């Protein structure tokens, strides 16, 4: 918990502030004037019925979908117009609702490919040959192996990621995101389609990451999980935020219960 204490002053300022985000598909207003603050060092849950616009909002925050309008400030920096790959390099990293491993790369390669600061990861660096980048590569292999060990996947490092189970693919994706050294992790239903045993593992990993000071925003359907894991919860319906707070406070709000929690 030491890390979290150190980060306390930063927690005064939200890690991400999105204001009046709109995302329209033709006539459909998937995200319709949503504003959201993501507090630093916490896990924020994003819930709502199917079609509420949660995944779309996540994609807009990560930049994988451009916003129709609105502004996004990440750690004090306006990133509204910066493309997804730049946001990822700045530490705003997302995962996907469907497994999105690089199938014909090994598990270890899936992690290595995400690591920034490898001298061999440019054309000219590559052309200079192995001796130019091998030091970086060795350092990153160590870093990746430490992550694999922590997530209990060391034995799988040389297997093709495409041959892993659904839960293992989730873990690969989370580890891959961590290789970037993110400041904010956007998780899109990290538990969906995952074996209950691995769900519990993922929960523990996320709690550990929070304890280390990482900020997380996660879309999740499983409300018990949200209750256990999330410090604050934002509820969306029909492209708008209809409430936010702790899960227990939300349960007391009539319109939210009507819109989502019961239905």
């Amino acid at each position, binding site marked *: 918990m030491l890390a979290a204490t150190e980060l306390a002053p930063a927690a005064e300022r939200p890690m991400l502030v999105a204001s009046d985000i709109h995302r329209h598909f033709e006539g459909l207003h998937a995200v319709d004037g949503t504003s959201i603050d993501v507090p630093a060092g916490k896990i924020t849950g994003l819930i709502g019925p199917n079609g509420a616009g949660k995944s779309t909002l996540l994609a807009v925050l990560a930049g994988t979908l451009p916003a129709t309008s609105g502004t996004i400030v990440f750690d004090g920096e306006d990133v509204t117009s910066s493309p997804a790959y730049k946001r990822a390099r700045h530490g705003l990293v997302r995962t996907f609702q469907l497994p999105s491993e690089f199938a014909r790369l090994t598990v270890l390669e899936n992690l290595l490919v995400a690591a920034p600061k490898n001298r061999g990861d440019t*054309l000219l660096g590559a052309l200079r040959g192995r001796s130019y980048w091998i030091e970086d590569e060795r350092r990153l292999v160590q870093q990746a192996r430490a992550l694999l060990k922590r997530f209990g996947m060391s034995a799988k490092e040389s297997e093709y990621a495409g041959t892993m189970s659904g839960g293992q693919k989730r873990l690969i994706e989370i580890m891959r995101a961590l290789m970037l050294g993110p400041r904010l992790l956007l998780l899109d239903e990290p538990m969906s389609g995952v074996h209950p045993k691995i769900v519990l593992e993922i929960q523990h990993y996320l709690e550990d990451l929070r304890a280390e000071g990482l900020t997380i925003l996660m879309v999740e359907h499983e409300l018990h999980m949200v209750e256990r894991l999330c410090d604050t919860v934002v509820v969306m319906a029909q492209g708008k935020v209809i409430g936010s707070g702790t899960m227990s406070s939300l349960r007391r709000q009539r319109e939210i219960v009507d819109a989502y929690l019961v239905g």
Partner: protein
Amino acid sequence: MNTYYAVNLLVYAGVDIIACLALNLQFGVSGIVNFSFIVFQAVGAYAAAVLSMPPDTANGGFQHYIGGYELPFPIPWLGGAIAGGLLAIPVGFVVLRKLRSDYQAIALLVLSVIANAVITNADKFLGGAAGIALVPPPLSDRIDPNTESYQYLYVGITAVCVVIALVVANRIVNSPYGRSLRAMRERELAATAIGKNPVQLKMTIFIVGGLIAGLSGGILVGFIQVWAPSVWLYPETIILFAAIIVGGRGNNIGAILGALLVPVGFEEITRFLNNSPSIANLGPPGLIPALQWVAIGLLIIGFLWFRPEGVRPESRRVFEGAPVREDR
């Protein structure tokens, strides 16, 4: 087998290997379905030709083309490579930025057809349908190209170019940069989400592929001394794709193997069939060449169906100090 035939085979093998290494970087490693690949070889050949030839007023002015600079070797070959790389910039700029990958393939195929039609009909530009003839072989001002030793020299220079192309391709494929390209091939959106810029990756490898393809064109035109639209019709690209698919996508050994099996081996064997009078006279004229295309098509389909990874599959990369793989 006489020297001429052996040299012919070796130079063609070299050119095909270089071309397949380039196409493998684009298609096998990066997933760019470059159906206009042959255009990049062609532009390299045209550039090398006009850089090495005298102005078109020479030889009684029987042919028309732009330029004619009589530059010494190796400038025409380098020029050919640069022309291939330069062409990749506008083409990539239009095709690779916004289009989905299947539309990219269609756009590139159409580009190949259009380019061929334009060059065929613009007869003052690069010789039109008749093409360009009497391209001087490299170093022909110093060594008589009709000697056997010159023939071997040509094979030697081609071999050096193969080695250069192979070193470049190996360094790219086996580097962290190559890993980023493979990640993009596997899942472009996820690659974007981990900080890769797919447009930049694609543009860069498109240009590198264009450079190498252009070089292969330069080598070829110096050897056959003629170049015309009929030698770079779009099906030539399909043969190279067949080579990559048969050899094994994503690895350079596979690309070399494919080059030796399909454009060299397969075409040469069927060429012999065509030369044998009892077979060549079978059926209507043109039957054997037509069947050659059918066979190429069947080869592609057969491999995609039964062995999509090719003769030599892309290897799984095991890192130093990896735990022993569990047997399942």
